[in-house]
């Protein structure tokens, strides 16, 4: 299958610390691809390099046959991104934010207004369309940022922890939208450490630990056709806690 996104040998160092160490990814077109890993594994740093927000020290990223670096402008036309740290225009309403983002992407104004209304409706934000983004809750901010990422109908959608701090209802809405996007031929790359969601949604995953890919494959391969849980595979791959809670926290009991 043709790949929508390929990363080869990505390396990023911060001083002495190697945040990402020769990371390789190949995301097939039309797939739902997960990057999973514990906190601090290098998922966000990798995604930032993939979407052109952080220059890698080594390695290359190609999206739809176009190199992201040195100039990520062309690739930004093709991808939609939901970053981990949302930096939005706080003093715009949700609707205004979508309209300006669409216009800055050079979309036709009529199309932008129509798409913005539809996205706000589907994501359950119609009632908050005229509220300032500054007044949105965390879940609403995720949804408006997702709307902004989808507005130009990107061929690849890259989402960093899209379900973090999102309530189950909003989470279901986001999943529905993403499944519709995927069924229309879109490619999704997303990071998470919620194993149930990853297992339910993804075709393929890579497990990242300390900046390196420690396991990769389809969900069926990794779980041996559901004979083991993905969570156990994940813990085996990244290493469990140093001590058993039942042994070291003996004091933690009720009288």
């Amino acid at each position, binding site marked *: 299958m043709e790949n929508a996104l390929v990363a080869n040998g990505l390396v990023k160092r*911060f*001083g002495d*610390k190697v*945040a990402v160490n020769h990371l390789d990814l190949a995301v097939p077109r039309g797939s739902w691809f997960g990057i999973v890993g514990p906190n601090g594994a290098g998922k966000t*740093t990798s995604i*930032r390099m993939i*979407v*052109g*927000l*952080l*220059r890698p020290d080594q390695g290359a990223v190609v999206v739809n046959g176009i190199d992201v670096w040195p100039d*990520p*402008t*062309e690739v*930004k*036309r093709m991808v939609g*991104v939901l*970053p981990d740290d949302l*930096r*939005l*225009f*706080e*003093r*715009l*309403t949700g609707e*205004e934010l979508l309209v*300006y*983002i669409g*216009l*800055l*992407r*050079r979309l036709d104004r009529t199309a932008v207004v129509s798409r913005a209304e539809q996205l706000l409706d589907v994501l359950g934000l119609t009632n908050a369309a005229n509220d*300032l983004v*500054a007044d*949105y*809750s*965390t879940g609403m901010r995720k949804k408006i940022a997702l709307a*902004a*990422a989808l507005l130009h109908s990107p061929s690849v959608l890259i989402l960093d922890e899209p379900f973090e701090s999102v309530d189950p209802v909003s989470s279901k809405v986001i999943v529905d939208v993403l499944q519709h996007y995927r069924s229309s031929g879109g490619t999704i790359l997303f990071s998470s450490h919620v194993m149930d969601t990853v297992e339910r949604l993804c075709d393929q995953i890579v497990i990242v630990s300390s900046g390196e890919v420690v396991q990769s494959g389809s969900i069926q391969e990794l779980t041996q056709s559901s004979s083991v849980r993905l969570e156990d595979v994940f813990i085996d791959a990244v290493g469990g806690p140093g001590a058993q809670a039942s042994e070291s926290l003996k004091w933690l009991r009720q009288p």
Partner: protein
Amino acid sequence: MNSLVHMARLGVSLRWRLSSNRLRRRGKHTRRSTILVAASYTVLNAVVLGSARFGSEAAAVKTLTLLMASMALGWVFGPVLIGGVDETIDPTRLALLPLSSTERYIVQLSAAMTGPGPLAATAGLVIGLMVGYTRLGISILVVPLASICAILLMVGAARSLAAALAIAQRSRVGRDFAVLAAAIAGGSLFIVAQLARDVGARADALIKALAWIPLVWPARAINTARRGEGLPAFGWLVASLTLVVALHAAWIWLSHFLLINGERGSQSRQRTNRSTLSGASTRFGAELARQLIYLRRSPNNSVGFLYGTVFGISFAMVQIVQHGAGNGTASAFGILLAMLANLGAVTNVLGFDAGSLWIEVLADGPGRPHIMARQLIALPNLLVPTWLSGVVVGIWTGEWTLVLLVSILAIPIAINVLTFGVVASVLAPAALPDWDNPFGNRQSNEGRGLRLVVIALTGMVSIAVLSAPIFMVVFRSFGYWWLWLLPFGALAYAAVPFGLALLWAGWYLHGKEPDLIEALASRALN
């Protein structure tokens, strides 16, 4: 070209929408006052500059130099000091869009020219210069060009500074250095002016110093053109244009650098607090240890400490130069100004920071132990710069005895500062600004920047009132044997309001945790 025009129109529209939404949110009164202030500023500038047509040559030069310098300093440092007002200053909000560096620059440039402040400043400057400084001859050409140059210079300098600060703030050392450098740059002009002996000479010295600021070079072009000196006028105009190109190129480059190297360069290093925490066996001890760790790590504290030390010593030196090394009394008491200069370093005394508040609430607080620990830990930031200033004054004047007396007196004065801190942090809680992100100062977004200023000014007055009896008794006791007993008496005097304030604060805060959380960490309630 069509694309750039499209981007420019979007930049204007975006900034206009952001400004109008912000004003609408702040209410009718704020909206009206903003419009009134902007209109008044336009008229004031136009009238002041326009009236130069009827004044003397020397007065016209001084007027334009002063006005352009004040406008430039406000334009450049305003967005940094009152961050968060203009969201378009932050290039990272456009990071995910497929804009080339040129397109992003055009969006930001057009947005930068559009807010109420820039529009008022531009209109007043251009109208005033056309009326007051344009005569027949070379000035017809130079004045309009230099006016445009002046505006572009201010925009370029403001945006380059903001981007440079954002880059610097990616590391702790860079952040401390940037804030310190900005503080020294801002204060040095004031100190230069203060060094002159009389008011007239001081004003002349200030204007001469201001005229050399590159942002004021267009004023030099206009002033020389007004006198009909063609070659020097073109020289200053070319210099200004070159600077415009350099600053705008720097802005584009710095924004690009910020966008592709945005993540923090300094990853957290392993830290250990065993020695600090080992003695924390009581609530007060634990709180004191935590505050000590904050004091060591907080960029706010380290920057404040550096700022207070540099300005404290500078203020002391100003006293010496103004009054002469022979007047040791004024110089020695001048070291107390270091404490005032450092009030900003103890904002955790005047307010809370949201992080501290959460920990205090989780630890059955905030109560007296928490407040007392927070206050006491601020003492080093108040006293050390003061004592360092004392050493400088001692070396310079040889008045070591007087310096020693004032250094001891600084302790009760500092306790008076803390007394105000206890009351203010309880009655007018104000969250600390987010120094990590110069673009995201949420305090200013909510109008709390002004609140912090009001609290600080009230603090200065309150501390002066509380400390006045100490000074009155000390000044009347020079030459008497009991003079050296007075610092101990002053300590006892200062301890009384401090203790009473603590008792009151503990009582007042009981059950007020939800109110504090709402006031200080409202985002957490979403």
